[in-house]
């Protein structure tokens, strides 16, 4: 078990298993990105720049939306994995969503997500393929790991939430946790509402 950083997640209400792994100190981002650009079928993953992820719930909100849109046959992008990256975005511009949330050549922290849309996508197959191809140090996919990775300023900018106070001023017991929680649910709301004309 401890050999692979991969985690299989069964999101409530969804019939498809989701596999996710978090890495830091990734050395071969340009290679991984190149595989996406050349549409290498073996590399059908959601490769997310983990510095744009605030928390596990943030990432899973986008996964949920993408899987639900997939089940309802209304994907806006090529496949369910590109849709996960697109679903992180608060806007309807697909290219822009990849620039902001997708892997870039300079990405060092990477969140990888793969959905079991066909029976041959299993924990074992995904774990083995990632072990061969991602050069980086595995981390647990949880809020604690992410808190050391996320770039709050960039996230706020991407969601146009710059005016959110880091700590709520009106409340006597406003802690940093409250501020982060408010940012998290604001981001989740933006993901849910994307595309609502």
């Amino acid at each position: 078990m401890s050999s692979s950083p991969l985690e299989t997640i069964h999101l409530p209400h969804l019939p498809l298993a989701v596999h996710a792994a978090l890495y830091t100190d990734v050395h071969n981002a340009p290679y991984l990105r190149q595989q996406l650009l050349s549409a290498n079928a073996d590399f059908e993953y959601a490769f997310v720049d983990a510095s744009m992820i605030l928390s596990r719930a943030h990432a899973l909100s986008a996964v949920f939306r993408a899987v639900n849109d997939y089940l309802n046959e209304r994907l806006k992008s090529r496949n369910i994995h590109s849709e996960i990256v697109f679903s992180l975005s608060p806007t309807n511009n697909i290219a822009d969503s990849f620039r902001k949330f997708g892997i870039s050549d300079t990405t060092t922290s990477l969140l990888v997500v793969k959905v079991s849309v066909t029976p041959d996508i299993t924990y074992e197959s995904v774990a083995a393929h990632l072990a061969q191809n991602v050069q980086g140090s595995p981390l647990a996919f949880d809020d604690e790991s992410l808190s050391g990775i996320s770039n709050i300023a960039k996230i706020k900018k991407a969601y146009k939430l710059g005016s959110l106070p880091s700590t709520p001023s009106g409340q006597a017991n406003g802690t940093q946790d409250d501020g982060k929680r408010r940012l998290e649910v604001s981001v989740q709301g933006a993901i849910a509402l994307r595309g609502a004309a």
Partner: protein
Amino acid sequence: MPESEYNPPPLPQPFTNTPASQITPIYQGAEAHLYKTTFLSPPIPAALKIRPSKPYRHPILDRRLSRARILQEARCLAKLVKEGVAVPALLGLDWEGNGKDGGGSWLVMEWVEGCVVRVVLERWEGVIKARQGYMGGIEGEEEKVVRRLLRRIGGAVGGLHRAGVIHGDLTTSNLMLRPFSRIGDQKGNVDSGEEEEGGSSDMEGDIVLIDFGLASQSSQDEDRAVDLYVLERAFGSSHPRTEEFFEEVLSGYRESYKGAGSTLKRLEDVRMRGRKKSMIG
């Protein structure tokens, strides 16, 4: 064959996959059904609101209405969360609701622990009544806690209006009293049972506004005043013993944002003529 037995409409995608043990009906209104379930993480409770499609409406009209209304609600919730107003956060949404068999549009919100203010006040009124019979006034200490509660309600409504949102259906059933939580302890208390009866400590907590099914965005004094008027009438009819303290709601409101004064002035006009504005001219 019991003809009267009610069959709730089938759940829309993706909740058709959900085991019955993980989705519990809570409330059913004319427009929507509310369930307690989970979202993203199994131990954390969430509220699911479904607007089932109405088979008697023309399908195109039905889609349009359902879509417009769920979006309206979702937008208001998202905006209020951003503004830091205490409402259940919007976590997930599907305005199409086109599960292959009709289904309906849905939205998922944060679960709010606690009790609706209507119940808090009814409980309090019961205690007061039992203690005093029908004679005499209400004792100082008991009066103070209820006054404080009403003042906080005014503050909550003011925060809502300051953010540019009108609730549209302010009653004491759409206000919740959420007990002060131990921070970070959200996961543990799914099974919190009934609170103990009586004491005034029951009235501590945050006021959380719920049910934005009739909400809209507006910053006009008229709309704000009507919102307050509806709440005032709700107090008058549901809580006769607390009606005399309604002034506390208004003073809490007055202190909550800058434009509150002119809204309260407008409220006087609304009281004279009722909720509906004259349509003459």
